[in-house]
């Protein structure tokens, strides 16, 4: 398949690996920020190919994983009113809030619908004028523009029954928080699709202030290995900068139109991240112009204090301090079928990827 097969060629993988092995003279701790990178690294079995002095850590870039319990509890509270239709991306369905998940609510008769696009929420609202439709808007800079488009369309169509519960977040503050929390990183393997929207300038602080190698990577095995080689070269030379490996998708200036729509609809706020706590100016909320569509302002939430599963170390894993295998719940009581923590729920979560694609040999 064009644009896929080229980046999976075994001889290119072998060449990159031999260069990596030749040039990796020290010890390297690289963090892949994005959940899709974690997934790809495991799916292609890359950890079994890399030398031991290169450690890959999963970061806080899985949107479902970093969504905090309060948000899930709010979504669950919304389902209690049988006049509400809660519309969500599929992955969020299984995340446990206090005692139950949205899937449990659906089984109990709540109207919870899975969609594939934010625009599907408009269709559902149009078809159900007598109901309140709440779209659970989660994700990073990749999905926020799509929510922004839905917000603007809903506003211009004057849909009175569609609301957005935003948990959208932006990537750089969490990447800073991870380092500020004390972990030593040699480099960041930066998210490809986030960067397609934001461009490369959002990462400048990492090479400049933190002396961390920074490469924006694609998702195929040669992309990831090439990016690792680029990171090694930055570390070895001490010439830290933000480089784009994923040039076929990411331009330095990003997607200006998408950012423009995002900026029209959203403004920054301090936000809660599962495992990382409150991070200043890291979340996106609807601007006052769209207050009518903001579920946070239009509904009164009475939600319980969040309960975290004792023993679950999702927070430590999201910070790169621990690996899924370090958790005593991993693959015993916590499995993709019965996830105890968010990192096991999402296909992009590191526990899920480690479970699904266990290394061999």
């Amino acid at each position, binding site marked *: 398949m064009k644009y896929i097969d080229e980046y999976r060629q075994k001889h290119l993988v072998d060449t990159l690996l031999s260069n990596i092995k030749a040039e990796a003279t020290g010890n390297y701790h690289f963090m892949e920020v994005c959940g899709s990178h974690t997934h790809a690294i495991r799916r292609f079995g890359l950890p079994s190919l890399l030398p031991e002095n290169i450690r890959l850590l999963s970061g806080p870039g899985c949107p479902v994983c970093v969504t905090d319990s309060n948000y899930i509890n709010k979504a669950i509270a919304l389902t209690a009113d049988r006049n509400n239709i809660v519309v969500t*991306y599929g992955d969020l369905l*299984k995340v446990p809030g206090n005692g139950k998940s949205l899937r449990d609510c659906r089984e109990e008769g709540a109207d919870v619908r899975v969609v594939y696009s934010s625009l599907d929420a408009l269709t559902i609202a149009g078809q159900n004028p007598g109901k309140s439709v709440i779209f659970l808007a989660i994700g990073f800079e990749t999905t926020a523009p799509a929510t922004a488009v839905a917000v603007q369309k809903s506003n211009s169509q004057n849909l009175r029954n569609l609301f957005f519960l935003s948990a959208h977040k932006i990537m750089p503050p969490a990447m800073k928080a991870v380092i500020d929390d004390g972990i030593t990183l040699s480099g960041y393997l930066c998210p490809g699709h986030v960067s397609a929207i934001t461009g490369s300038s959002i990462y400048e602080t990492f090479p400049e202030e933190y002396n961390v190698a920074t490469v924006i990577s694609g998702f195929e095995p040669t992309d990831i290995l090439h990016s690792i080689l680029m990171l090694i070269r930055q570390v070895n030379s001490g010439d830290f900068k933000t480089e784009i490996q994923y040039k076929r998708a990411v331009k330095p200036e990003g997607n200006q139109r998408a950012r423009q729509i995002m900026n029209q609809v959203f403004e920054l706020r301090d936000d809660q991240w599962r495992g990382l706590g409150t991070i200043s100016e890291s979340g996106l909320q609807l601007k006052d112009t769209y207050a009518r569509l903001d579920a946070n302002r239009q509904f009164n939430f009475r939600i319980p204090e969040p309960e975290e599963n004792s023993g679950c170390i999702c927070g430590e894993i999201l910070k790169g301090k621990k690996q899924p295998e370090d958790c005593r719940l991993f693959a015993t009581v916590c499995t993709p079928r019965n996830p105890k923590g968010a990192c096991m729920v999402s*296909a992009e979560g590191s526990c899920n990827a480690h479970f699904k694609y266990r290394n061999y040999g």
Partner: protein
Amino acid sequence: MDDKIEIGHGSGGLMTQKLIHEVFMKHFDNEWLRAEGDSAIVESTHKKIAFTTDSYVINPLFFPGGDLGKLAVCGTVNDLAVTGARPGYLTAGFIIEEGFSFESLEAIVKSMKAEADNAGVCIVAGDTKVVEKGKADQIFINTSGVGFVDNLHSSLAGGGLIKDGDVVFLNGTVGDHEAAIINAREGFFESAGLVSDCASFNGMIRRLLDQTDTVRFMRDITRGGLAGILHEVAQMTSLGFEIEENKIPVGESVQAFCEALGYEPLHMACEGKCIVIAHESESGRVEAIMKNHEYGKNAARIGKVTQKHPGEVVLETIAGGRRLLEPPREAKVPRIC
């Protein structure tokens, strides 16, 4: 002819008689049905028979490459064939929701007849029930089947013949059926070229069994996909598999579909595919026989049996990495980004 199925069509009275004669008998027509006995009396050509059953529920009922009727025949035929049996006779049980259209029912029945003819089997008995609106989703079909087993092949079913070093073959691309169904159901991509592989491949199996004596085991790949089936066989036999990802055929449309939505082709259901495990000797011949058949033309040798890691399926990925190939454990949901 009436437009819709009514409760009365399942009452056992005149309306039922009319339905049987004007739809089922009309299309399935054969000597056993014409006899109108409470059971069909069939000739047994062999001492050993294989006997299986499966129920078919699918949404949408009609999809690119097939429909519920075709599926209900080929699924049961394939279940018989992979145990080494020659599929002979099927029964068909219909549970129909009140209000279902006669036209769709007739299309499904015609399709069953066409597939039964393709596979060389006869539908010799049947049953119809009509349930109230909302008590079933349009139409469900159960088919049971019997097939005849040569003495030579009577031990193929259990996996007990599989040995360390045996070769694993696959008769073509994986994931076509489930990708076509999900796409038809959810309307993700128009003209995506996704077509179900739904087919009765008993003809290919017969050639294999008639022309070689090295086949140790066969199993059709349905729910759970290739990964699920390999895992099941590994657990069942306490042997392991070494599978090479780059040898597994995946159609371009299916690959594109899976890449876009974050699905794993090796987890996707098939309806016309099977694994064949054979002794290493004559493995070239096994592959050639499969490739020479319509339903095996993309056949490939995808790996081998090993006793090194009992119960585990190890995948050498396209990048050359090694990892466990896990069966799917959760419902498929498209990724967020």
